[in-house]
């Protein structure tokens, strides 16, 4: 992998310990030093809001603090929009400091920037089977998708070490929907033009639905790997992942018991998955004894949730069903905690994932619950092995795994097993072979029936610090 190291250097009129102390302090010291970071300690989540798109909002570089030498060095290990390290070095210079920044740019990052700047980057189809991954490397979804690319890369490398697909190595081609359905359509078309006959989606359902419609009549198999509301028909459309009605069915009673109350408030982002999940809640919750006391939506990309939080407070809700995702979910939860909502309510967030929890920070996750087919702390033997291989490959500061990102690892393996069974990577044959299957995965046994409906064990989990710990399963 080719990595370019870019360097910048400036002299600052204050001694090194003072300049070092400005990092993460929100002191108006420019986008690099004004990194969003609760604590400047190794392992802490850090967000750099880089003005890389002069015409648009800042691009969020998501990572963690790696090595730290007080007064001398800060290393940021980042994963979005590309993998690399950015290192700040502080050296005495007269009575001031010389600050030197070194930032790594790999080939994927370089390509990503070229595309973001509107340059054509050619992707010619090769001879080997190509598998597409459409994920969110920018926008609010880049948070929940932080480990998706890593998961696909790990699965593809393992498959290739094991003989590839029918003896040929698989080439993984990754696209970024920027958490925007229109961009997603462009990127999916690019992946298809690059020879991908199957594209895996680790994006919001809004992107999957848009691409599904835009690519109707195209011979490309589209597979949504992560939790979704279902409802997309077609022989070349497969939606793996958890479904809202079953998730709510598994979590509603334990949550009402824990909250010692039955009043629910529904709050989420304004697009298809939250709307469908709320529709399922209106059906499932009353049946289980719940009562709905309010509902609010906010567009994806919202940063101020004061109005929603006040409405929840006024409603007297015992449980909040939160269907916010990504950066919105992180901001909503932090603001709820700041408001003190956790003292009166519990929150069930079906799409809450460990990398979003890392951004919320250990102090503000109290009372937060999720329901999914996987959590990183799952003690299955296959998961323990997967985590060991993931850390060995991507390092200790790589983002945590979650049901959203781990679903990508599993989908790559499901695709490979189907292609092997079908004896081809031709999409119709692969799609057919992905039905009526039963596969042993890190999350446990997953079955796909003849209609493409997925069955898996669900876990209700509670946030403990930035981890999800299983509290009950069904």
């Amino acid at each position: 992998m080719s990595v370019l190291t870019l360097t910048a250097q400036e002299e600052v009129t204050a001694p090194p310990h003072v300049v070092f102390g400005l990092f993460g302090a929100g002191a108006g010291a420019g986008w690099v030093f004004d990194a969003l970071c609760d604590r400047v300690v190794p392992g802490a989540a850090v967000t750099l809001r880089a003005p890389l798109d002069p015409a648009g909002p800042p691009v969020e570089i998501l990572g963690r603090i790696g090595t730290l030498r007080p007064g001398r060095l800060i290393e940021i290990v980042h994963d979005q929009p590309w993998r690399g390290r950015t290192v700040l070095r502080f050296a005495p210079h007269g009575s001031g400091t010389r600050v030197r920044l070194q930032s790594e740019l790999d080939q994927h990052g370089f390509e990503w920037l070229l595309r973001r700047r509107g340059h054509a980057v050619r992707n010619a189809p090769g001879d080997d089977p190509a598998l597409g991954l459409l994920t969110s490397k920018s926008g609010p979804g880049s948070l929940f998708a932080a480990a998706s690319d890593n998961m696909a890369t790990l699965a593809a490398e393992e498959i290739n070490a094991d003989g590839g697909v029918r003896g040929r190595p698989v080439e993984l081609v990754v696209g970024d929907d920027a958490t925007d359905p229109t961009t997603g359509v462009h990127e999916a078309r690019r992946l298809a033009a690059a020879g991908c006959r199957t594209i895996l989606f680790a994006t919001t359902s809004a992107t999957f639905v848009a691409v599904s419609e835009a690519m109707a009549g195209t011979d490309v198999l589209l597979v949504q790997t992560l939790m979704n509301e279902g409802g997309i028909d077609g022989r070349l459309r497969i939606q793996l992942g958890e479904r809202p009605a079953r998730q709510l069915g598994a979590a509603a009673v334990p949550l009402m018991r824990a909250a010692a109350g039955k009043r629910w408030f529904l709050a989420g982002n304004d697009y298809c998955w939250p709307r469908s999940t709320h529709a399922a809640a209106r059906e499932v919750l009353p049946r289980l004894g719940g009562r709905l006391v309010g509902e609010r939506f906010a567009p994806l990309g919202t940063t101020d949730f004061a109005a929603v939080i006040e409405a929840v407070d006024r409603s007297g809700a015992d449980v909040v069903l939160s269907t916010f995702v990504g950066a919105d979910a992180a901001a909503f939860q932090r603001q709820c905690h700041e408001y003190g909502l956790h003292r009166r309510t519990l929150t069930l967030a079906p799409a809450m994932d460990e990398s979003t929890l890392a951004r919320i920070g250990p102090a503000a996750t109290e009372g937060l619950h999720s329901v999914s087919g996987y959590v990183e702390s799952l003690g299955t033997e296959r998961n323990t092995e997967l985590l060991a291989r993931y850390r060995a490959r991507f390092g200790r500061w790589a983002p945590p795994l979650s049901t959203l990102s781990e679903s990508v690892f599993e989908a790559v393996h499901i695709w490979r097993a189907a292609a092997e069974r079908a004896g081809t990577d031709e999409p119709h044959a692969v799609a057919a072979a992905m039905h009526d299957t039963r596969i042993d995965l890190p999350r446990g046994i997953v079955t796909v029936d003849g209609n493409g409906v997925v069955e898996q064990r669900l876990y209700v989990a509670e946030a403990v610090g930035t981890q999800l710990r299983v509290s009950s399963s069904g």
Partner: protein
Amino acid sequence: MTSDLAFDALADPVRRQILAVLSETDECSAGALAEQITSVGRTAVSTHLRVLRVAGLVAERRAGRFRYYSIDPSGSARDVLALLNQVFRSGLLAVNDAVPAAPEEREQSA
């Protein structure tokens, strides 16, 4: 620039080092470049510069018997690398704005 050619060109550590040096300056003579790239000899640096030039990443200007190199201004690579450099530099420049006044200045103003 065709990206495949550019990525082949970027596959070599010496060529990446040359690009990193050039991305920090407007233009650099062959001699000055060779002084900064110490891992290989002058002839090898020239060979790498030719690969970068063919890939459309680097532009060459001749003046008498001297040759000067810069990141190809017409290329998309230039656009991206220049943007990154400018963005990182502006990020560091802003640090001075947040530096608290030195103690003696504070005493004088008090």
